[in-house]
Structure formats: C-alpha cells, structure tokens
C-alpha cells in the first residue's frame, strides 16, 4: 500500500534550461510541427536531420538521457512489432527466405524507416511533457484553444477540468489508501480469491471513494463560487503567458527547419 504514495503524476522534470523557460505554447506548436514533419519526410537523410534537431533540443534541456529513453521503454513492443511486420510483409527483392517468410530489401528499409519515425516521434513529443509542468501545459492548451470558442470549443472549461483532475489525483490516491485500511481493519481482503470474488471485494472500497469524490466536488464548487468564480469570461491570470523574444526565435527556427527539411528530403 505504500506503493500508492510513490506514484508520480506526469513525467515533468523541473529545471531552468532554455527549453524549460520557453512558453508552453511554443513547445506545443513545435511538437505539432515535429509530428507533421515526421510524416512528410521520406528519406534517411531527413530522419537524420530531424534526429539531430531533437538531439540538440535534448542537450539544451539538460535532462539526463535516461529520463528521455525511459519514455521509449513502454513503446518498445510496438516498435519491434512495427519493424517485424514491415520486414516480412513487404514485397520486393528477397534477401533470404525461411519457408513462407520472405525478408525483402524494401521491407527492411520501410521497417527501419517506420521504426525511426516512431522513435523520433516519442522522443520529440516527450520533450514537451518532460520540460513543461502539467499546469503550464493546461495553460498553454487553454490559450491555444481560445480562438476555437467561436466554433463552440469550451477552451476554459476543458483547461479547468484538466487542472482539477490533476489536482485531485494525489488526493484520491490518499483517500483510497485510507478507505482500504479502514476496510482491512474490518477484515476485508483485497488480494485473494478469484476474479468475481476480487471484483466484489472492491465494492466496499469504490462506493465510499465515489461518495467522497462527489462530496469533494460539491465542496469545491461551492468554495469556487464563494470566491467569485463565474467561468472563464473576464477572468485574469496570476501567471500570464508571455511570448518572449526567445519564443519567437525558437518558433521561427523550428518552422524554418521544418520547411527546409520537409521540402528537400
């Protein structure tokens, strides 16, 4: 049960590097550009250049490489799967053949390309979540979505929901631990028994958890209203997002880089 306490939310690693200090909107937009670029680029030279760009960003962020690679681990299976699938399923010049399994040059190249594309995609976008706190991220998303209000996207509400959800994850974990302990003190057993038995044993945990969550939600709504919350209209911010010159430069650089690499490679 002490495990519950050690769960950390997101993978943000605080720091004060050039990348950390960038406006979250710069980083979100750059990530989008990167995603598009990776699907436009068609050759290994292009991938090499993108990899070089990402490597520079990683270097500038001062985040140890092992944290960056940690994000890749859960997706290792997909990477290997993609590679093998392309290796065996593409027609072309045969390198060697085992029974009905043909390995082709085309397959090898396409597999490697897809693998590289995925790998760069993961590492590149994880730079966003590694260097940006969840709060900044929601702030950034809210501001970016704001023009979408005209077509009915509730930007502020979405951001507020994300903020509250993030804020309450640790609280709910703590609460879960408390209720589990209280029910265990009454002889509840959450570990043994078959699937049905175990699912049933969760009722004494889940019912109070939900009841308390709704109670908290009510309390929070009242507390927010008591402090004058009326939605996003006319609301000012403590931490205004500001585009600095460095943001302009970073965005400009990313765009130029993407245009050049995308057009020629």
């Amino acid at each position, binding site marked *: 049960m002490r495990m519950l306490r050690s769960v950390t939310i997101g993978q943000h690693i605080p720091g004060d590097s050039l990348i950390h200090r960038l406006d979250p909107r710069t980083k979100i937009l750059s990530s989008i550009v990167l995603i598009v670029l990776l699907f436009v680029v068609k050759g290994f030279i292009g991938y090499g250049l993108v990899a070089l760009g990402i490597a520079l960003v990683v270097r500038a962020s001062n985040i140890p490489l092992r944290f960056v690679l940690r994000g890749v681990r859960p997706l290792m299976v997909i990477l290997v799967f993609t590679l093998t699938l392309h290796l065996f399923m593409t027609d072309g010049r045969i390198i060697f053949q085992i029974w009905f399994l043909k390995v082709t040059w085309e397959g090898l190249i396409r597999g490697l390309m897809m693998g590289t594309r995925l790998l760069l995609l993961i590492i590149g976008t994880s730079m966003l979540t590694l260097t940006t706190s969840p709060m900044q991220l929601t702030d950034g998303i809210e501001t970016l979505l704001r023009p979408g209000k005209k077509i009915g996207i509730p930007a502020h509400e979405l951001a507020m929901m994300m903020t509250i959800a993030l804020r309450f994850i640790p609280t709910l974990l703590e609460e879960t631990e408390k209720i589990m302990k209280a029910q265990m003190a009454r*002889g509840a057993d959450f570990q043994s028994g078959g699937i049905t038995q175990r699912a049933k044993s969760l009722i004494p945990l889940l019912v109070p958890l939900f009841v308390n969550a709704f109670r908290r939600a009510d309390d929070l709504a009242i507390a927010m209203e008591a402090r004058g919350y009326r939605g996003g209209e006319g609301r000012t911010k403590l931490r205004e997002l500001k585009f600095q010159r460095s943001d302009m430069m970073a965005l400009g650089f990313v765009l130029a880089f993407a245009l050049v690499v995308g057009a020629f490679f």
Partner: protein
Amino acid sequence: MSIRLENVFFSYLEGTPTSQAALRNVSLEIEDGEFVGLIGPTGSGKSTLIQHFNGLLKPDSGKVFVDGVDLTLKDTQLRLIRQKVGMVFQYPEHQLFGETVLEDVGFGPRNGGLSEEEIVKRVREALAYVGLDYEVLKDQSPFELSGGQKRRVAIAGVLAMRPSVLVLDEPTAGLDPAGREEILAEIKQLHDEGGITVVLVTHSMEDVARFADRLIVMEQGTIALDGTSLEVFGQAGRLKDMGLGVPEITELMYELKAHGLDVDTEILTVAEAEAEIIRVMGWGCQK
C-alpha cells in the same frame, strides 16, 4: 489482551529522497483493560503508531506483539488480529458503503465467516452499544442518516467484530457537543462494563483527563511522556512547549496558585476543583 511494541522504527516512503521517520525507537506496552489516552501535536506519529497495533503498517525494524503473537512475522494471520484489535479511523463515516445499515455494520462479522444469524445478533448488539435501535435502522441506507448517526453506525461496524481492544482516532472530531458527550460516554461504558481495552487518540485534553487512566504523549515520532493523567498533566510546562496544554480546569488551578491561593494543582475535573477550592477557602462548614 496486551499490545507490546519493542524498538519500533517506521518511515514513510522508505528508500526515496522524501523518506521521513514517523516512528523512532518506540517501545510500549498496553495492558489488558487499560483506558489509554494518546495525545501529541499534529504529525507527531499518533496515527502511524496505532496502525501498528493491528498490522496495517509493519515496522521497518522492531517487534509488535498482540497477545503474544508477533505481527511482524510473515505467516501471522492478520485477519484474526484485526478482529481482536478493532480500529476506528478518523471520520469513520467516510467509509460507509452498505446499501443498508445491517449490511454495513455486518461487514466485519461477515468477513469473519460467521453465520447470518450470528451476524444479525452481533449487529443488533453493536448498534445497541452506540445507542441506536436495530429495528428502526436495519433496512435504512446509512447515507440517509444524520452526521452523528453515521458516525455511530461506523463505530458499530467495528464493535460488531467484538474486539477486545478498541483503538479510536479522534472519534469525536466534527461532532456537536452533545454528540461528543454521547460517544465518549458510550466508549467509557464499553470499557467499564464490556471490559474492553481502549486506546483513544484525541486533541482534547479535557476528554483524556476525564476518561483515560494512562496518558501517552507523542512528539516527533517518539514517546515523550507516559504515565497517569496526573503525572503527565503535572508537566504543564513540557506540554506547552510541545504545543499541547493541560485541561482548562487544571490551568485554572495553576493560575490560582500563581496568584497566591494555596491550592493543589493535581486537579483534572471540575468536581475535584470545586472540592479543592471549598477546602482551601474554608467554606466547608457552609455546605
């Protein structure tokens, strides 16, 4: 049913940078039939300590014995221990889940594998202990009850296991004065008539002064003071340094003494204070 702790150390998040010692070399013994008050400032380790009494937490090092059984051994049947050492957590009404009061209060006995008939008997008995009527409440949803009633139903859920030790973590927090009095009186009755060993965690010096035979004061994960109520409240200065205090009536007697009235400061209740003041002032003949 005795509880014995030997050199218990415990820290949360052990092995991580944020690790903090919650208990540091705690040894104590609680004898059968005692009424122990456990006090201490917030974060002094009270809640951590009591969770060692029924094996919800296991010490990093040291031993815990309940009735001679070592809880730190791997093959100890903690479920049996938890039937014997009943634990009422803070705001126990936050753990209610049953569709009916009967189902909720019967949860403990049902986990103990008792027959339906025996469960009903236990529930009836437990509800009676906390001053509730089984016939009226058994089919009601616990969520529809008033705050004080919910608290009682939750306490009954622990009593239904017929524990021989009852550990309560601030059982009166958030109740009105009448509700507090009733719950405390019921606990006192369980101790006096039911012969149950009680460990009461509280911030109210008045409550422990009135009910507990023995006081244990925790400070920064260690036992700072351990003795009878009179012995502990005799150390008013020490308690104040910790951010605690003495019961108001004891405080009054200290003040009277400071102002030159030669009263005894070993006073814990209003009745004792009244008698002492009458004695010192020589009003005895008028009464």
